[in-house]
């Protein structure tokens, strides 16, 4: 595959032995992964497996109970607030729900990072904003408010805002979930183009298998807060691990092996929590 030919020098993201607790519930267990420069890493896993939690760690919105997160060669735990703010101008984030500022027009939303971080004059900012709107095929919508857009348009506008500063590293949470197949495919194409044209490293969290196989260079499979597998698309496809195969073939988990445990759970016996939410 030609697209994997560039020599990767450093890692854009490095996570080492990350553990997270909410209260006394452990959510992530010893998660380690690295995202190489210029690659698209897809984080996948079942609902509640901890994908969003992991992403929030990468964004510095959560701090881990233990372990380190390095973004673009900076340890998030060791940065001063100012250094962290500076680092954040080099990354872009498209949230699952868009998180567009509802009081501002789409154009103002996309222009905001430029206005806040660059000294560019308004004309240039206007041009760059419209350029990014063209990229996500939203030209002409800049004066609308987020409430006046459809779900798919909001996702694309959020993506435009995420890339307006031409970041070195882009995070996307469920970029194509809930979109019609044509729009979903166009977002996949866009993500590939960003990687190819700008050399961005991209971390995508998704449920969508088709899109995963289309865009991923490598896949990280999370299961109940643990990294189940971290490998290339081909290797994941060829994996013999039953849980990975279940995920890939959309099979549900094996039937409950212990009817007594099932009964106890129904009766509300709290000493018998399922694996993912065992108290530690």
């Amino acid at each position, binding site marked *: 595959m030609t697209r994997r030919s560039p020599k990767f020098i450093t890692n854009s993201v490095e996570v080492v032995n990350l553990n997270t607790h909410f209260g006394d519930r452990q959510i992530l267990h010893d998660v380690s992964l690295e995202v190489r420069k210029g690659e698209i890493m897809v984080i996948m896993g079942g609902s509640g497996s901890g994908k969003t939690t992991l992403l929030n760690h990468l*964004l510095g*919105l959560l701090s881990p109970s233990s372990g380190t997160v390095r973004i673009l060669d900076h340890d998030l735990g060791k940065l001063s607030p100012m250094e962290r703010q500076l680092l*954040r101008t080099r990354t872009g*984030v498209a*949230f699952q729900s868009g998180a*567009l*500022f509802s009081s501002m027009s789409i154009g103002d939303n996309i222009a905001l*990072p430029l206005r*806040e*971080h660059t000294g560019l004059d308004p004309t240039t900012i206007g041009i760059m904003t419209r350029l990014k709107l063209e990229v996500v095929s939203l030209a002409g919508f800049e004066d609308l408010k987020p409430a006046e857009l459809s779900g798919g348009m909001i996702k694309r506008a959020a993506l435009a805002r995420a890339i307006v500063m031409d970041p070195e590293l882009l995070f996307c949470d469920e970029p194509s979930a809930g979109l019609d197949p044509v729009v979903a495919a166009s977002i996949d194409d866009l993500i590939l183009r960003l990687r190819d044209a700008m050399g961005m490293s991209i971390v995508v969290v998704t449920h969508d298998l088709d899109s995963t196989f289309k865009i991923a260079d490598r896949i990280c499979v999370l299961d109940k807060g643990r990294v189940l597998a971290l490998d290339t698309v081909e290797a994941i496809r060829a994996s013999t691990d039953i849980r990975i195969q279940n995920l890939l073939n959309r099979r549900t988990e094996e039937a409950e092996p212990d009817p007594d445990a099932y009964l106890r759970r129904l009766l509300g016996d709290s000493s018998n929590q399922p694996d993912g939410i065992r108290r530690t």
Partner: protein
Amino acid sequence: MNGGGGKNLRDFLDRLGRWAAAGVAEFGFAAALVGECLFWLAMGRKRRQPVRLAPVMAQAMEIGIGALPIVTVLSGTIGIMLAIQGIYSLKLFGAESRVTLGVAMSTVREFAPLITGILVAGRSGSALAARLGTMRINQEIDALTVMGVSPVRFLVVPALVAMMVMLPCLTLWADLVGLFAAGLYIAPQLGSTMGAYADEVTSLVQMNDMLHGLAKSGIFAVLITIVGVINGASVTGGAEGVGRMTTRSVVHAISAIVITDMIFVFMVTR
């Protein structure tokens, strides 16, 4: 351990402890927030994240101009009410000619700042809490953070500055309207004229009394903003949470205003 009573007491102490800890944490958060606001005001330009004038002006319009009609109506009403009560009670010992002193002092030192503060807490403090709460649950605050834009600098400082400018202005306006309205009742009652009433007021009210009221309104401005921001920022649980925190912010802001007023008066006026 030894029966239900002990357990209940322990539960109660446990709850009390948690409640106290949460209260202290909230105070700490408030102090840190004020500190951060001052930091951005002083250092924002140097950090290449200046506090911009446009959002301050927008907030000032919303807080100040929007509240003008209701402040006018209420301070006028209270001026007249104070005049009526003042004349009634002073008549009891034949001293109704001294009513202007009482009305002027209580309006300028107490009622104008208090009523304006309570009104603005209900109008703008709640709006601030609701706006921040909605932004929180829509992840707009997270979006600002990951963009490297400080939410405090971008959202809180403009509101704080606008509030600290507009609340004393509104209070000054309430002083004028309240005194004027009181005069409308007092002058005919005492058989004198508005001109004579105005002369009396200006000779009675010292700069010190005006400053007493305006300083309080400045403190109220900080209280309203910080209470609104803290409640808005700690919203969890969707639209219902926004409603709950908005209500809480109004109740807390008004309580804080009244209690602070009492403490201020106790410390300054003796």
